[in-house]
């Protein structure tokens, strides 16, 4: 693992955007071109660092944290600057690094009112720092800090550049998320003090919990607090109401970032923090998470059918799709969580793309009322086809990325993890499968109403309605290509995530075992035990059979 | 132990009873013939047109406060005088410091003209000099009391 970036690559990627921000702060806001250029160069630089990180990433040991930095940060409260990347975070980090420059390109010549590119781009770059930071953090306090950093720029983005109802939407977004993270912070602290751990690092806490420091009851409560924090961010069913408002009012780029990355912070929190650290509680909570997930799937789908606004419809479809992701997570199986991460990536690409399209439609028609739209294929055929393509991807057409998020998630519910009630999850599976049918329904219906037919009279001869522009092509092409690429060869993602997911589940379900052993700091990061379960996973031969095997092992280890 | 307070309590009860009885008796026995003229305050036989304001110089208060200052000083000086032999130099210095601090307030009062009873000297600029009788009367009763003399405040503010 000798490479240039070891030790400082992550720090570089995380904080480079802030350097860009600092430079932009010094330039007067009239020089818009310079701002755009600096922002683009910064985000491309970050993406470049990301590519280097990928190149030097040891794909044979995805279960191991790489590029680890572990330094004292706030000594008094035992918080450390601990960062690292493993297979679970890598796809999401790369997704972030990809989406941000695309957003900057997309908004190049049409910033929403009130234009002010300086402020807008600065916010995007701060967001990038927050998002990458959240994905790389390996310390609860650090994680929380980055998790919160994301909040304000997004708030301002919605509140300043949003639609007519922006104040309501932005405040709702802000308050929901803040309430969630408030309880989350209490959970984190409770976890820290109950375990008596001397560090906030994930692995340290996981070991401490495994060593049996926390009563089962306390674990349940702590998990509940985290559940609220992450669940609101996802958003899961009863807490989802901020999402449609925020999406509808946010500027296009804001919606894209929100859908593509921000929602993943919640699900990522589950797979990275809640489940590995509190495995017992996760098992107890799993049926409830699964229940809310399927309710979200059905509710989101039905909500979509009732929408009259295109952006709102896509927002509700997000609720449904994140339901699939949560269902995968709730199974607590290697298979399910792999599917969930795939679902996150796919949803990020596809829904991000859909929001881009919605933004472009809005710009041309000045409305997103579905009933007033129509004939997109006639007036802007290329855009219409892209729209159709994305709708197909979103409804989970095999061969496109969306399929690999939904289908395995449903499948994994057939055979949930150790201790999770099987019958319940099989029921969930059936319901979730119904959800895919509904998804096909609302997306095709949307496509039919918005893209097919003849253009409505009011827009028939509108000269503003042009086909896809150069900037749009540049910003969309990578997303479209990835949707196809991952759809055809899902191993692009699975290969990276599998080892890490497996490792994150291993200490969870084998509790008691070697975890009690005292490990020194360097070793603490080797969460998984390479010796035991690591082999045989590098080829993607995971299926039901395989999981069963696992379950037996867990059962044997005295769970 | 509380028995020694009994006479006080008895006296208290007696006093209360006496007062109450007097009131009740006068209410019962006195003839009541109220009349406007009788109810009005006496002002040289003229029926007052409005509520009469009660005005007396604020300086009375100041004098009262100066009195309190010295009163307190005496209260502290007395026990010191009784025990000064034992307290020695330490006590002397302490009481001198104390007297100095108390005297300080007297200096402040004098400096601000608290004891000047002659023709009124304008005490600093507690009220803006631009404030005339007309502006005051016109503004009286308006809630925004702080706005008086605003023009001059503006000018000096700008100058700053």
């Amino acid at each position, binding site marked *: 693992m000798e490479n240039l970036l070891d030790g400082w690559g992550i720090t570089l990627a995380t904080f480079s955007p802030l350097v860009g921000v600092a430079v932009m702060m010094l330039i007067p806001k009239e020089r818009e071109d310079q701002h755009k250029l600096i922002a683009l160069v910064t985000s491309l630089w970050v993406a470049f660092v990301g590519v280097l990180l990928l190149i030097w990433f040891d794909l044979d040991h995805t279960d191991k944290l790489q590029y680890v930095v572990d330094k004292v940060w*706030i*000594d*008094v*409260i035992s918080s450390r600057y601990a960062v690292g990347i493993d297979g679970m975070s890598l796809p999401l980090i790369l997704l972030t690094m990809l989406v941000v420059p695309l957003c900057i390109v997309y908004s190049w010549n049409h910033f929403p009112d009130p234009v002010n590119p300086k402020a807008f781009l600065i916010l995007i770059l701060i967001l990038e720092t927050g998002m990458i930071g959240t994905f790389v953090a390996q310390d609860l*306090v650090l994680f*929380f*800090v*980055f998790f*919160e*950093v994301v909040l*304000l720029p997004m708030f*301002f983005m919605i*509140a*300043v550049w949003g639609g007519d109802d922006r*104040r309501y939407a932005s*405040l709702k977004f*802000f*308050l929901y998320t*803040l*309430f969630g*993270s*408030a*309880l989350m*912070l*209490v959970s984190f*602290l*409770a976890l*820290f*003090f109950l375990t008596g751990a001397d560090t906030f690092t994930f692995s340290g806490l996981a070991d401490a919990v495994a060593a049996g420091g926390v009563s089962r009851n306390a674990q349940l*409560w702590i998990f509940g607090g985290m559940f609220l924090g992450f669940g609101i961010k996802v958003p899961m069913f009863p807490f989802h109401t901020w999402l449609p408002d925020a999406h509808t009012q946010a500027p296009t780029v804001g919606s894209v970032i929100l859908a593509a990355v921000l929602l993943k912070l919640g699900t990522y929190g589950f797979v990275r923090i809640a489940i590995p650290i509190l495995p017992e509680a996760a098992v107890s909570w799993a049926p409830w998470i699964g229940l809310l997930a399927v309710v979200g799937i059905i509710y989101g789908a039905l909500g979509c059918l009732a929408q009259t606004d295109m952006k709102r419809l896509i927002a509700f479809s997000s609720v449904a799709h994140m339901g699939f992701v949560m269902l995968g997570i709730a199974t607590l199986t290697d298979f399910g969580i792999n599917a969930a991460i795939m679902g996150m990536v796919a949803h990020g690409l596809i829904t991000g793309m859909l929001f881009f399209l919605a933004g472009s439609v809005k710009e041309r028609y000045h409305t997103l009322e579905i009933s007033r739209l129509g004939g997109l294929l006639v007036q802007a055929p290329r855009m219409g086809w892209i729209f159709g393509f994305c709708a197909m991807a979103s409804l989970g057409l095999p061969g496109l990325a969306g399929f690999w998020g939904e289908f395995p998630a449903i499948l994994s519910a057939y055979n949930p993890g150790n201790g999770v009630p099987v019958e319940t999850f099989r029921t969930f599976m059936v319901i979730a499968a119904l959800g895919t049918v509904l998804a096909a329904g609302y997306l095709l219906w949307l496509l039919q109403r918005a893209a097919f037919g003849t253009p409505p009279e009011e827009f028939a001869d509108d000269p503003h309605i042009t086909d896809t522009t150069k900037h749009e092509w540049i910003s969309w092409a990578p997303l479209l290509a990835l949707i196809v690429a991952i759809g055809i060869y899902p191993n692009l993602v699975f290969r990276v995530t599998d080892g890490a997911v497996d490792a994150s589940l291993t200490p969870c379900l084998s509790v008691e075992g070697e975890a009690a052993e005292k490990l020194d700091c360097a070793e603490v990061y080797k969460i998984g035990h390479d010796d035991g379960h690591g082999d045989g996973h590098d080829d993607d031969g995971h299926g039901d059979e395989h999981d069963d095997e696992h379950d037996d092992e867990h059962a044997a280890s005295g769970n | 132990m509380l028995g020694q307070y009994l006479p006080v309590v008895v006296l208290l009860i007696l006093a209360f009873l006496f007062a109450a009885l007097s009131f009740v008796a006068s209410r019962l026995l006195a003839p009541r013939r109220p009349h406007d003229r009788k109810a009005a305050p006496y002002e040289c036989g003229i029926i007052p047109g409005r509520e009469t304001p009660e005005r007396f110089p604020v300086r009375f208060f100041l004098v009262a406060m100066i009195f309190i200052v010295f009163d307190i000083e005496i209260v502290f000086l007395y026990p010191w005088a009784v*025990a000064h*032999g*034992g*307290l*020695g130099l*330490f*006590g002397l210095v302490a009481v001198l410091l104390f007297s*100095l601090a108390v005297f*300080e307030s007297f*200096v*402040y009062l*004098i*400096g*601000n003209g608290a004891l000047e009873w002659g023709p009124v000297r304008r005490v*600093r600029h*507690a*009220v*803006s000099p631009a404030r005339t009788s007309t502006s005051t009367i016109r503004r009286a009763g308006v*809630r*925004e*009391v*702080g*706005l*008086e003399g*605003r023009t*001059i*405040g503006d000018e*000096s*503010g700008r100058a*700053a």
Partner: protein
Amino acid sequence: MLAVATPEVLWWALLPVLFLSVGGLLLLTVASLVRRLPDWLPQAWTVVTGLAVLVACVPMWCEVRDEGPRTTLAGSVAVDGSTVLVTAVLAAVVVAVALLARPYLRREDLPGVEVYVLLMLSAAGGVVMASADDLIVLFLGLEILSIAVYVLAALHLRRIESQEGAMKYFVLGAFASAFLLYGMALVYGATGSTRLALVAEHLSATVLVDDSMLLAGIALLLVGLAFKVAAVPFHAWTPDVYQGSPTPVVAWMAAGVKAAGFAAMVRVLVTSLGTHASDWAPPVGVLAVASVLVGAVVAVLQTDVRRMLAYSSVAHAGFLLLGVQAADADGTAAVYAYLVVYALLATGSFAVLTVMGGDGDAAHHLDDYRGLARRRPVLAGAFTLLLLGQAGVPFTGGFVAKLGVLAAAVADRGYWVAGLAMLGAAAAAFVYLRILVSMYLEDPDAEAADGSTGPAVPLGARVVIGVACAGVLFVGLVPGPLLDLARDAVPVLVGS
């Protein structure tokens, strides 16, 4: 006659009080005797005095750290880390308020010496209060502090709100002082001493058969102190006083009075009555949660920025109480860290408000902040940072402070308290956000928009705001030094 034993005096330890009180009295004398004092002189004198106290704190800190804490004046004044830290905070706030006061007084056309004198005297009271190792001395300090502040509150002669606020403050404050005094009497009755060290000794050595008198005493002490730090339900004076008083004075109330009040509270409750923590900690927890929730929720309903910040200061008091109710060294250290951060935040915020007040100190409606970002971007930026700090956003000192008290509460198994307080914090964040929205998202009034560049920012205010912002950022990015400092400042009782 019998010679009375006179107490030992550690003069170096009393330097801060001496500087402040003698400084105040000297200034008063000179101003009384000299007719026309140049108006920079009182300010300069106050700043120099404040700085002198700060400088004196450095050797004191080293002495205390190296030689350990001790008491002086027959065990009635503590000389420990807590004393020095709070003294330094008070002195720094005095300097800041003095810097703000002169342009304010000139703008408002108010007489110029009394503010500084009262400020120094009240700071002297604050220092006494923070270092009191004896209930009587504590009361003495509290009264010196309070009476000066009552007058300060009324100092804007032409604003009826100033008089109204001062009157309320005075009447309620006197009431609270009475409670406090009665509480002290009961504690004395129960334990046989007013010296905190002896009280603690007595309580740890003996088991009281009937501790109702002690508990009543603690309850009354709590009421009196809770009033001073503006905790719900003893906060009713706060909004009116904050709204009415001259704004620089409000900075002093928020930063200085609160610091002194909490220092005293920690010393009495945690250090001296720590053995009875199981009795007083739950009520304090309730006060904490109530303060945070009420402060946050009611602040949302306000439209006057000063009232908003007043209620938010109530919420902050709640957070500080969260640290107090933990009743251990960690909680206390968290309280001190919070106090330092809050002093920065409050001084900075009210410095901005002082500038924004305009002639007559009246322009504090939320609408007056509309479009400030366009008119005065730097001022708006600084205010943003301070508000974010108050909200507890990461990378500002506020986050470190909140995290500290929260961690202390959770470590003490106060999950519900901590959880509810965090909900309140989320609601409070909404308040600060409203001000931000007003500054950044709304267009200025037509009147304010044409050509005006917003209020002038005098040099003194620039310095104060700049230092406050720098401090908040520094603590947010490098919290270590402050947390270490706070840890060293945990008060210690030195027995007889």
